[in-house]
């Protein structure tokens, strides 16, 4: 089974049912209160208000599982408890408050969905989602001859760069190059280490982009996530090739580490969002 197939099977939106729970519990509680009041049943309206409290907790959960957090949705349970812990003297006022609160929660749910993206999807332990997963799978055959020690160095180099520890990157990358020597791996992996060595040193010293810098060759292109841009500067001096070389090097090392060093996957998982951002950039 391919990685893409696995991802598709596990990628059904787990939050969809929870999203329905917000209006169902909030309006359901209010509807139950209206029914009880019109039927003359004398119940403590705090029981019906519990629907709003539950809906608030669900909304907060939906906000929590998104990579981008919505502080308004996250704090709704606090407001629910403040509003409904102490009952109002008037039943009509309580019911109106419940209805208004239910409307507010529904508006916040729509806002959460439109402005704060989709919920993070739980994957199988050995798979990656989206374009990153497709790319990692594409590079799998090329990683079959990679020594595990070199793959581990690829993971360490990638993680050091992701963490902004630029002074350590050249040390780890040079060790990776030595470990790749004579392994029969595609030269693109060594080039990726060299590019990170050079670019981390430039970033560490905050030096300007040099005129000449390490790049992938056209022969490496089959293993790269991004096509090689033309080596021409824009009018304002911006050189897209420099940034593309870094993106490709980071992604190639991430893929090599993921495919050939299973022990490093928990660490690589912590930088999955970063790698996804680089590939989708």
């Amino acid at each position: 089974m391919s990685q893409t197939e696995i991802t598709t099977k596990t990628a059904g939106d787990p939050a969809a049912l929870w999203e329905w729970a917000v209006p169902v519990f909030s309006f359901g509680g209010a509807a139950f209160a209206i029914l009880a009041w019109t039927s003359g049943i004398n119940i403590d309206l705090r029981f019906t208000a519990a629907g709003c409290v539950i809906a608030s907790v669900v909304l907060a959960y939906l906000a929590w599982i998104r990579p981008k957090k919505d502080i308004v949705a996250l704090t709704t349970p606090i407001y629910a408890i403040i509003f409904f812990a102490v009952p109002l003297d008037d039943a009509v006022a309580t019911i109106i408050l419940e209805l208004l609160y239910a409307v507010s929660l529904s508006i916040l749910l729509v806002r959460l969905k439109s402005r704060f993206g989709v919920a993070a999807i739980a994957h199988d332990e050995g798979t990656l989602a989206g374009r990153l997963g497709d790319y990692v799978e594409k590079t799998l055959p090329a990683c079959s001859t990679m020594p595990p020690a070199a793959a581990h160095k690829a993971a360490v180099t990638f993680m050091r760069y992701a963490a902004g520890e630029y002074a350590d990157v050249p040390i780890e990358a040079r060790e990776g190059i030595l470990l790749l020597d004579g392994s029969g791996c595609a030269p693109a992996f060594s080039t990726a280490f060299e590019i990170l060595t050079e670019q981390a040193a430039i970033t560490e010293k905050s030096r300007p982009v040099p005129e000449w810098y390490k790049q992938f060759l056209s022969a490496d292109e089959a293993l790269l996530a991004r096509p090689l841009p033309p080596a021409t500067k824009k009018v304002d001096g911006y050189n897209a090739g420099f940034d593309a070389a870094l993106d490709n090097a980071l992604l190639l090392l991430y893929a090599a580490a993921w495919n050939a060093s299973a022990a490093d996957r928990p660490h690589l998982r912590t930088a999955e969002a970063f790698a996804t951002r680089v590939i989708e950039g």
Partner: protein
Amino acid sequence: MKIGNVEVKVSLLAIAVFVIFTVFLLVASVNSTDVRSQLIWLIPGLFMLLVIPIALNYMSRSEYADITPVYEAEAKTVRVKLINENMIGKPVRIEGVVEKIRFRFLNRPQFIVADRSGEISCKMFTNPDEDIHEHDVVEVLGMVIHRYVAVGDPVINCVSIKKIDRKTEPAKER
């Protein structure tokens, strides 16, 4: 207003609060002898509504002025896209265009700064030295933090934001 070498700015909100309470006090003192008898502490209390924000602003701005050279020395220039959760606590420098400014009236401006690779929020807990407007090309110094203390996407706790002399988008994005 300048105190020592520090340019102090009071937020619009603080001024609005002061003006509103001044009007309340004037109206109440005209209509009530009880209020007039309490003016000896009401008037100083009213001025504290201005003095306290000024003092806080002075303290935060002088603190920022002290730490800016440290960030200038230690921050690494990065592309916005490269800023991620693993960099929490790291000093960074970005160059980009101000796309949006929020909460300026609170003296807690949040600048949305974009370069060719993406955009990021730069939160500042006091007003910047320069008047920054949308579409200005700026250099931002700050530390990568979570948006909400311990959770949320990475944003920059901005220590310094200043205009740089670029007619177009930043030329050197790394």
